[in-house]
C-alpha cells in the first residue's frame, strides 16, 4: 500500500532534485547509482527513476532479481532529503517518449546544482546518458523517511496503514 507523502515534499520531488537509487543482491551486498532522471506523479504514488545501464549493471540486475529499491531525493541547496522504499517494481527500457522527462530533469538539476556553486557543464556530465542505454524503474513507495540532516533524520513519514 502506498505511503502518503506530504504535498510540499511531492512538489520538491516533482520539480527534480538529486536522486540516488540503491538495491542489494542475493548475498545482501548493496549497490547504488545516481539516477539520470526522475518522474514523480502529482499524487506521489507513482515514481519512475532512470538509470544509465552502463553505470548500473549490477544495480539493474539486483533491482530485477529482488524487487527491493531504496531511493533518496535530496535538494542540494537546502539538504532537504527523503528516502523512499519499496519491495515491488517494474522496469522497461526508456523510449523517445521519455526524452522530455529527462530533459526537464536535467534543466531542473542544472539550476539546483548551480545554486551550490557548480556550473551547468558539470551537471550535464554528471547526468550524461544515451537514451538506448537507459532503463526506467517504476515503483510505488511503501515506506518514506525524513532524511534531512538533524534530529528528525530517520523519522518515518506517513504510515503504511
Amino acid at each position, binding site marked *: 500500500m502506498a505511503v502518503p507523502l506530504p504535498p510540499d515534499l511531492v512538489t520538491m520531488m516533482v520539480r527534480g532534485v538529486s536522486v540516488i537509487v*540503491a538495491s*542489494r543482491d542475493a548475498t*545482501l551486498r*548493496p549497490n547504488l*547509482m545516481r539516477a539520470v532522471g526522475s518522474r514523480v506523479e502529482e499524487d506521489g504514488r507513482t515514481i519512475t527513476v532512470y538509470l544509465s545501464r*552502463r*553505470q548500473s549493471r549490477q544495480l539493474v540486475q539486483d533491482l530485477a532479481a529482488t524487487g527491493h529499491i531504496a531511493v*533518496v531525493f535530496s535538494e542540494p541547496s537546502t539538504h532537504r532529503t527523503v*528516502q523512499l522504499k519499496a519491495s515491488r517494481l517494474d522496469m522497461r527500457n526508456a523510449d523517445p517518449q521519455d526524452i522530455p522527462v529527462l530533459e526537464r530533469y536535467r534543466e531542473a538539476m542544472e539550476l539546483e546544482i548551480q545554486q551550490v556553486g557548480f556550473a551547468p557543464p558539470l551537471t550535464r556530465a554528471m547526468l550524461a546518458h544515451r537514451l538506448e542505454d537507459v532503463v526506467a524503474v517504476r515503483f510505488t513507495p511503501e515506506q518514506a523517511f525524513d*532524511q534531512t540532516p538533524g534530529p528528525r533524520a530517520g523519522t518515518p513519514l506517513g504510515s503504511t496503514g
Partner: protein
Amino acid sequence: MSAPTLQDIRCCFEGIIPAVVATCSAEGVPNVAYISQVFYADERHVALSFQFFNKTRQNILANPHATALLIDPGTAQFYRLHIRYLRTETEGPLFEGMRAQLAGIASHTGMQGVFRLLGSDVYEVEKIEALEGDPLPAPPRRNGLLGAVRRTSERLARCASLDEALTAVLGGLNDHLGIRHAMVLMLDPAAQRLYTVASCGYATSGVGSEIGLGQGVIGVAARERTPVRIGHMTNAALYTQAMRSSFDANMPDHEPVTDIPYPGLAQPHSQLAVPIQSGGRTLGVLFVESTEELQFSYEDEDALVAIAGHLGSAIELMQAANEAGDAHPAPHVPERPVTPAAAVPLVVRHFCANDSIFLGDSYLIKGVAGAILWKLLRDHRQLGRTEFSNRELRLDPALRLPDVSDNLEARLLLLQRRLVEQGGGLRMEKTGRGRFRLVLERPVNLVET
C-alpha cells in the same frame, strides 16, 4: 579502464560534493543515505563520518558490506567503492583529522551544530570501480609541487642554524608554493604549549605568542600528530585560533599583560597545520592559512608533510651539534666595540613567579627564555661576561631547563627575535655553532621583583 587506487581518487575525498552510501539490513532491506565525509585513511581504508544513530549505522553493525558512490568534483567522473565495515574510532589522529574537516564542511553548508562527528567508521576498501560515463576533461595537473619541495629542501639543506632553517622554510613556502601566510610553532613539552618562533605574512610577527596543546587547528595537529586541513572558514570555536584570549581567560596561567597576540588571520578560509616530528617526537607545528576557500589540497598537504619532515630532522641535527658546541670552537668573531650611550639606563625587571621580563614598561618574554635572559644579564653584571654557549645553559642547574627534548636553540631564537622586535638596545649575536654573544647598547639597571 584499469581499476584506480584510493590514491588516484583522493580529489573525491574533499567533501565538496557529498558522497552517498548504500547498506542493507539483515532482513534484506536496502538503505541509501548521504554522507558528509568519506575520508582517506590509508591506501586500503576509508573512514566514513558517523554523525547520527541512523539506519546506515544499524545496518553496518548487522551486515558490514556497504557501497559508496563518489564523484570527482572537477570532472563528474563517478567511482563506486565496495567497502566492509571494520571498526569505529572515537579519538586519535584519524578522528581528529575528520572532526576538523567536518567542522569546515558544516560551516560551509550551513550545518553548524547539526554536523557533529560521533565517530570515524573505518572500512576496508575491497574494490574500486571507475564508472563509464562522459566526464569533463580533467583540469591540467598542478605541475611543479615536487620541484617546489625540492627547492625548499635545497634551501633548508644549506642552513647552519635554526634561524636560517625557519627563514628558508617560510621563504620556500612563499616563493615556491605561493603560500603567503605561514608560521612555525615549537612545542614546550613541559608546559604543553606551543610558542611561535617564526611567521610571515602577518601584520605582527607574533613571535612568542602561545597556543595550548589541543587548542585550535594548530594545537590539535600537535596533540594528535596528524595533519589537520580545513577547506572552508569554520565558525566552530574549537578551530578558531584567534579566540585564544577569551578562551584562556578562565585558565589559571592566563596573564593578559604577558600575552603576545596570536598573529594569524582573523577569518581564515583555508587552514593546514602539519606536525613537525623527528625520532618519533613532536617538535612543533608548521601552519599555513589563506583568505581563499579550498586553497590547500591533499597535494599541498603532501608537500608540507615532506617539508616539515625535513625541517624536523634539521632541527634535531642542529640541536645535537649545538649541544656539542664547545668541542668545536668556532673561529673567533671579534667583538665590535659598543659604546654604551651616556643616556638613561634601560631598566630590566624580572618577576620570579613566572620568569617574566619587562624592558622598561614593555613586556618582553617569560618562562624558560625569560630565565635564560636573566641569567645572561646577571652574569654580565657580576662577571662582565658577554660570550656564552648553549651547552653551559643546558648544564646550569639554576635554569632548571627541561630535559633534552626541549629545544634550547628554539628558546634562544625566540629570545633573540623578541629582543630585536622590542628594540630596547639588547641583542644576541650568534658567534659560532652553539655560541652567542650578549650585546648591550646601553647600560642596564637590573631589578628583581
